[in-house]
């Protein structure tokens, strides 16, 4: 059973839940400090960290195989192209 060896223990899952809740607290706390545009970036960095935890542990991305990882990264890459080009267009209009 190569499959069972990838299963996370309840303890690991609980620790990840704890980390996600702490990060939620941090992002709410950071929103009270007025840093202008930096606030948005801090919020997005923390959201990405939370998303990574969910992807790797809860969604078992670590054992999902190369095909899933490569296709996921390609999706993020194309999303970045979409976001980048739209902002490029908007900025030079």
């Amino acid at each position: 059973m190569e499959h069972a060896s990838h299963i996370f223990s309840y303890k690991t899952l609980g620790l990840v839940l704890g980390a996600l809740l702490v990060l939620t607290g941090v992002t709410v706390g950071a929103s009270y400090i007025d840093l202008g545009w930096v606030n948005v970036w801090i919020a997005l960095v923390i959201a990405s960290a939370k998303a990574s935890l969910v992807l790797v542990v809860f969604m078992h991305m670590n054992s999902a195989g190369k095909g899933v990882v490569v296709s996921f990264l390609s999706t993020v890459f194309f999303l970045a192209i979409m976001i980048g080009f739209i902002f490029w267009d908007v900025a030079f209009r």
Partner: protein
Amino acid sequence: MPGQRDQTGKKLGMWLFLFTEIILFGALFVLYAVYFSWYPKDFILGAKELDLGFGVINTVILLISSFLVAASITAVQNDQRHIALAALAGAQVCGAVFLVNKYFEWGHKIEIGIYPGSERLLDGPAPQNLFFGLYYVVTGLHGIHIGIGMVLLAVSLVLVFCRRITAENDVVLDNCGLYWHLVDLIWIFIFPLFYLVV
């Protein structure tokens, strides 16, 4: 083993579907980001109208539900059927509480005259109308996903109960779980973008 390969294909198929969901919400986020960069002051005023308490509670509820769904997969793998059933039922309750909160949150907004096409928004500054339009579209579409996710979790719960999902054959639970986690993942980005830009 042919069975093994079949499961891999089913999982990859689910992931491909999830990628289309990421692009769908990604496009809405881009729309939000562009208007936010054009009208930051109005968007911040709009975000101040949102109830941070509801946002935080719903974030915590979804994170806990994701943990429960992940725990149910561990339980099925360990042949702990009762724990799996309890975890799936708990996640179901979390989803229901999320939607009830959303009902009260939207209900309050509608009561004070903030809804698509309301006089208050039409007569007010146009960018605020945009903010709340996006708020209703994005949280509404996400709410529909929560509803679909709850149906999928209910199906998984019944299949675990009937012993159709077992340690050897858990791909249905895995895929329903993936969908639920993606819905959580999207909320992880909705929450700071709408509630925390104040």
